[in-house]
């Protein structure tokens, strides 16, 4: 069973929208409630490395992609999560699973206004501490 089949097997119907755009780039979607379990599966059980996460302000909501690198094959598995509530987007923090996610969640929090529940230290990373509340530089409507 290859690594993609292992993920499909473990997540069953919770993962959808699979696409392999190019040979080593795999994207799939999960609901925001399933992010902790999915990240745990990829990082802890399948031994992937967390490369980074990227969040985008889209018309449908705030979209987060969690990019995990499987270095044995050079593939990147990008977990797509859509937060439809743009007014107060909220998702579980994956930083308690592994510390490498702490900084990027702080960054997404300050630049796009995503609340990460359970983050151990959610404060400004790149912006100054007295940055005005409610101003998010990477939001498209300002």
């Amino acid at each position, binding site marked *: 069973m290859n690594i993609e089949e292992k993920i499909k097997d473990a997540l069953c119907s919770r993962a959808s929208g699979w696409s392999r*755009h*190019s040979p*080593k*780039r795999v*994207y799939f979607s999960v609901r925001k409630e399933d992010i902790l379990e999915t990240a745990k599966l990829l990082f802890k059980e399948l031994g992937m*490395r*967390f*490369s*980074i996460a*990227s969040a*985008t302000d*889209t018309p449908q909501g705030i979209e987060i*992609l969690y*990019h995990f*690198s499987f*270095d*044995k*094959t*050079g*593939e*990147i598995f*990008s977990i797509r999560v859509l937060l439809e509530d743009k007014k107060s987007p909220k998702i579980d923090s994956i930083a308690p699973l*592994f*510390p*490498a996610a*702490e*900084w*990027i969640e702080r960054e997404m929090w300050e630049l796009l206004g995503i609340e990460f529940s359970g983050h151990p230290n959610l404060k*400004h*990373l*790149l*912006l*100054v501490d007295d940055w005005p509340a409610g101003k998010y*530089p*990477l939001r498209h409507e300002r």
Partner: protein
Amino acid sequence: MSHKVIIPIGPYHPLQEEPEFFRLYVDGEKVVDIDIVLGYVHRGIEELAEHKHFDQIPFLVERICGICSTSHPLAYVNAVEDLAKIKVPPRALYIRIIIAELERIHSHLLWLGLAGHFIGYNTVWMWAWKYREPVLDIFEMVTGNRNHYAMMKIGGVRRDIRDQDLPILKKTLDELAPAVDMFHGAVMDDPVIQARLKGVGVLTKQQAIDWCVVGPTARASGVNIDIRRDDPYAAYNELSWNVIVEKDGDVFAKTKVRILELYESINIIRQCLHKLPPGEIDADVKDIPAGEGIGRVEAPRGECFHYVKSDGTNRPVRHKIRAPSYMNVASNKVSVIGGTISDAALTLAAVDPCYCCTERVAVVKKSDNQKILNGWDLVRLSQKKTQDIKKHIFVNTDIRGLHTDGHG
């Protein structure tokens, strides 16, 4: 803790390329905690990229870092070529590798010099930067610039390497190889440097995995990853070289990985010069369709990651950039804690961060007897430790004629 003292390091230092601020919490000589404060050079490049068209962005991302100024454009064009499924002419791919590996050589030599300076081996500093100079001259000859080479473009490279430049490139590499030999001998076999760097700033393999560090920082801790081999871009799948992996995770292991990687880079460039195919250097790309793509590059400091999303217009709707230091610097949280203040500057520098180190250092005590140290004091502390080790080794073993330099 009655003796807990806070030492701020940074944010500015003229030796380093980027400011960063470290707040060390120390108990006596021992570092018990560290705060890392970023953002001094946050220029909003990801946001700026959304307002540039696709062909302008290589120039923008090139200016993220002066040292790995080709890694970012290369990762970006890889991302766009992944998005638009562009086939790049083979000659352009080989030229990309030559530029990227020359960059690794000059970057590793730069770091080696700084590390030498931090431990009081100023001769190593001068040597390393002396041998870095011909590499920059090569860049000027091939690209027109010593830094910010502006070589990468979507679908190819902007300049060809002329036939008459090839012998000069080969000659420079031939002259560089003995210099690397000398570093290998003088640095790796020196008992003082071994005593100074071994066991300092250790990042264990498990810590390296948990913090997702990349590049030489990961490979020095026994994590066998290298994007050039694992997810080959350009023409790396047509070349052969070794991925250098050490297991100790200390500053010595990181030094060793970088020195040995110099040989591999020379080897890779020689193969490229030998195999350099004739033909076009540009695929002449017109439009970028809607979609998303990810490009990765093994920069001198590790995996450089770019994600680009397009809606079919001439500008990306999202461009996410993750430089390798973003993962590596965070791991200082574990490698610095437990060490001494005299090792802190060295350990922070050992991940080869784009960071700023020891300028504007102040020791802040909670009591009223405040003490302010200037920027050089941390370096001086680090150099003093080397001298102490040196004295100890020379007194105890009475080794004569050791190849150590004659700094004061």
